[in-house]
Structures are given as C-alpha cells and as structure tokens.
C-alpha cells in the first residue's frame, strides 16, 4: 500500500508553485529525494524569483535544509541518497552527469547555521574564494578583500588584524565574515540555512539587515523556523511540512491570509 502511495506521488505531478510573473531563477521540478528508504522530499515543485528574499519555513525535520542543499548539490556528500526530478538554475540542471557542478556551485554562496571559517586567517578566508574565481595580483586582492569586508560592515572591526586566525573573531563577526566570503565569489544566489540560529540578538539583527539590503542584487533563499524572522524580512514564503511544499505565497498574503489548513495551524503555533 505504501509503495502504491509512493508511486502515485511520484507520477502525480503537482502544479508548479509560482506566485509571481517572471520565470524563476531557481526551478525545482518534481523533485523527490530518498535517504536510504526514507522519502525525505516529496514531489517538490516550486520556482524561486530573482533578486527577492524567499524564506523556506517549516517545523524541524520537514526537509527544508535538504531542499536547500539540493540546490547546490551538497547532497553529493551524503552517501545513500537517491534523487529524481531535477532543479534548474537558470536553464542549467543541477542533477545530471553533464553538469559542471563546480561552476554551478560558484553561482551560489552558502551560509550555514553556525559560522564555519576556513582554517586560515581573516584575509585568506576572503581571498580563498577570490583565488578560485580568477587571477588577481596582490593589490587587486587587497582591494577586493577590503571591498567585501566593508560590504558586511566588518572592515573597521578587523582591518588591523587581517592576518590573525578567523576563528578568533566573535561568533557574530565570524558569520559576517562567512557572508563576505560567500559574496566574494560573486554569486547570483545566496543560500542560507538558519544563518542566525547560533547568534545573539544583535548579531542576528545585523545579518537580517544585510539580507534585506542584499536582496536588491541577489536572490536569497533562507531556511528558518523562526516565524517572526520570516515575517520581518521575507518577500516570499515557501511553507513545507513533512517533505512536501504546502504552499508558496508572497509573504504578506502568506501571513495574513494563509490558504492551507496546515499553514494555519503552523502560524497559530500548533506545531511548536
């Protein structure tokens, strides 16, 4: 019976959720993901709009982080994962043997739950990505490092100790450094997995402000389970529950006039 249900879900393609006009920059096309025998993502069909901040919202374990990691195929690192369906970044498929995944990943910056500075000094944390992106001489590198550190308002705090290990920064500074590092490879998209969950309120606010500002020039996809945060900064909200996308709506509509029963329950705090 279970397998029948599974088959029905896999073949019964859902209608693509796209509550906006233009074609999305990220298109998730009937994506299913299994870890071993567990069906983690179920028929996910969504489009994510360009240069907006889209929040993936849902209770813990609903598959939102997995969905995010599918977008730049970090799922490759986990053994025993099976994927069918696909994700398109622009017109390039993410899953597929012909995909140049290294080039594709460079289009997407990543910010994780806790900051993970590279085991290098502050300067090289930024320069590492730059060096992967192209050839720069010393002076150009210096300028770019400064530029990206300024972009996240970190320059004034670290300009006198660029050569000290990045792990010596406070955790809030580290997270801003990680954001700058992600921006330095000049991505189109920034993927963020609960980027403020390990931060104090002041640092969280700094990151949130950054995100709001960045969403003019970048497509941001942020996973969170903090309702208030989503309310504060989201342009669009994707609500997930048990591996399925329940609804995707512009943020204001989503919060003021949720359509689905599960969304209403979640917003009223029934899952928490």
């Amino acid at each position, binding site marked *: 019976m279970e397998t029948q249900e599974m088959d029905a879900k896999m073949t019964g393609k859902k209608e693509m959720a796209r509550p906006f006009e233009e074609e999305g920059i990220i298109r998730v096309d009937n994506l299913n993901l299994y870890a071993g025998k567990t069906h983690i993502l179920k028929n996910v069909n969504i489009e994510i709009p360009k240069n907006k901040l889209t929040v993936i919202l849902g209770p813990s374990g609903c598959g939102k982080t997995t969905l995010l*990691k599918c977008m*730049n195929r*970090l799922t490759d*690192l986990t*053994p*025993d994962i099976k994927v069918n369906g696909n994700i398109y970044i622009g017109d390039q498929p993410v899953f597929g043997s012909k995909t140049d995944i*290294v*080039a594709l*990943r*460079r289009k*997407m*910056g*990543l910010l*994780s739950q*806790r900051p*993970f500075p*590279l*085991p*290098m000094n502050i300067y090289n944390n930024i320069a*590492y*990505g730059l060096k*992967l*992106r192209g050839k720069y001489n010393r002076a150009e590198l210096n300028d770019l490092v400064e530029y990206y550190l300024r972009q996240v308002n970190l320059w004034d705090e670290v300009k006198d100790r660029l050569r000290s*290990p*990045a*792990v010596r920064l406070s955790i809030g500074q580290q997270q801003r450094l*990680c954001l700058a*590092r*992600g921006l330095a*490879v000049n991505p189109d998209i920034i*993927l963020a997995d609960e980027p403020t969950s390990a931060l104090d309120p002041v640092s969280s606010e700094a990151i949130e402000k950054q995100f709001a500002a960045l969403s003019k020039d970048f497509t941001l996809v942020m996973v969170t389970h903090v309702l208030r945060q989503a309310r504060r900064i989201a342009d669009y909200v994707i609500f997930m529950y048990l591996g399925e996308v329940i609804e995707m709506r512009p943020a204001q509509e989503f919060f003021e006039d949720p359509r689905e029963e599960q969304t209403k329950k979640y917003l009223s705090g029934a899952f928490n």
Partner: protein
Amino acid sequence: MNISNHRRTRDRVVTVLTYLAMAFVLLLPFALFVGLAAKSELLFRDNSLGHLLFSSQWKPSSGEFGFKPFIVGSLYVTLIAMLISAPICFLSAIHITQYAPRKVAKIVVTAIDILAGIPSVVYGVWGMVFVVPWLGRIAAGLGIQSNGYSILAGGIVLSIMVIPFILNILMEIYRTIPKELTEVSLSLGATRWETIRDVLNRKALPGILAAFGFGFARAFGETMAVLMVVGNVVKIPSGLFDPGYPLPALIANSFGELGSIPEIESALMFAALILLVVVLVFNATLRWLIIRVEKY
C-alpha cells in the same frame, strides 16, 4: 541537613585514591629514567658521553662501547619505515574518509583492525620467509652483495606494522573535521581535491603531525620483527641492502647471554636510556610544533 560522616569519609578516600593513581602514572617515566640512568652509571666511569654516542667501536670484551652503529641503524630503519608508510597512510586515510563509499570504508577499517592486532613476531616470520629472500634476489639482480637481511627488509616489515597504527589515528582526525567545512569550500567553487588540500589538510595538520610522531616513536622502539630481518651486524650501513643493528635488537639479543657481566649490563641499560631519550625528545619537539600550528 548534615552530610553523614560516613559519606564524607568515603568522598575523601576516593579523592586520595584518584590522586595516588594519578601520581603513580606521573612518576612512571621518571622512575624509568632514573633507574636506567643509575644502571648506566658504571659505563660512564671509563667512557665519556660523546665517546659512547659517536664512537663506532663496539668490542664489549675489551671494554669498547661505541653506540653509533646501533643509533644510526635504528634511525635508518625507522626512517625507511616512515618514508614507506607515510604516503600510504596519508593517501589512504583521505580516500577512506573522503571518497570511499560507506561499505568499502567499513571493509577497509576491519582489515586495518585485523592488521593492528597481529603479534609482531608474525610480521617477523613473514619478513624472513618472503621479504628477505625477495630482497636477496633483487640485490643479486642489481649486482649487490646481500643475502636480503638488511635495513631495507627491516624498514619494509616495520612500515607494514606501523601502517594500521598511523592510519587509525589519521582516519579519526579526518572524521572529526566538521562536514560543514567541506560544504563551505565546495560552495565557493573549489573542487573536492582543492578542498582536501587547502582546507581539510590545513585543519588536520596538528593531528597529522601527531599521528606520524606516534608512528615514529612506535617504529623506533619496535624490536622483535625488525630483529628477525635486519641482519644484526655491528656496522654502520652504507646502503639499503646492508645489514644493520638497531638498539632494541641489541638489547633483546644480548641481554640473556651477556647481561650477567656488569659492564655489558650497564651498556644495555644505556642503550635503553638512549631509546627512551630519543622518543621523549622527539615527542617534546613534536608537541612544540603542534602547538605552533594549532591556531585554527
């Protein structure tokens, strides 16, 4: 409410017991060092330290005790073993932890555990039966005078013995690196190899040094298997196919028959002292180095 006297006493007794156990552990290396040094004292009556360490004359019957051939023999065998095992351990640890599918990794880890549990005398026999004749044939092919019992044979057998040991530590080190660090580097557009080279290896560097340090210390002191294949000729080896006579082999071979003569007993204690000091100094240097690179 008062804690009853009984409970209070018990608490105190446990505190004292744990303290004594710790003190005992701390005293061990000192006791070892002092014991060996005291027993070597006799040797110093007729020989200076410099003479003992740097003379090549070993004629116990006429009171000549030059340890240089043994020290050099030990260093050569250990060095050969490390040169063979280091790249193998390093590359296979990376493959097992970063590339291999879970099932393959499990099989390899089991194999390593089995290797680690084999008694050293078994490696020695294997070396005598397979490695030594094989090296003898190669030497003959190259026109070198050797029966195969050589520092190279010792190094090969020793490298196989330390591989499981070093590899186990290395794998543990790569496993403790958070997966997110790999994710971050990949998401910046690095390839898998660039990530390993620039990020994971840098993160693992202190651990890598420690692993090879422990491997060195273990190899330097390994006795049985080396003794069986290294030739045990008191001479400074001048080539890979030359026999040698490492310090542990000297002690093990001589103690039974010659240990009753006070001067020779003293000499063997001094050999043990050299082993101890080399390993201690090496470990201390390494620790200093590890602290220096451990800033990330």
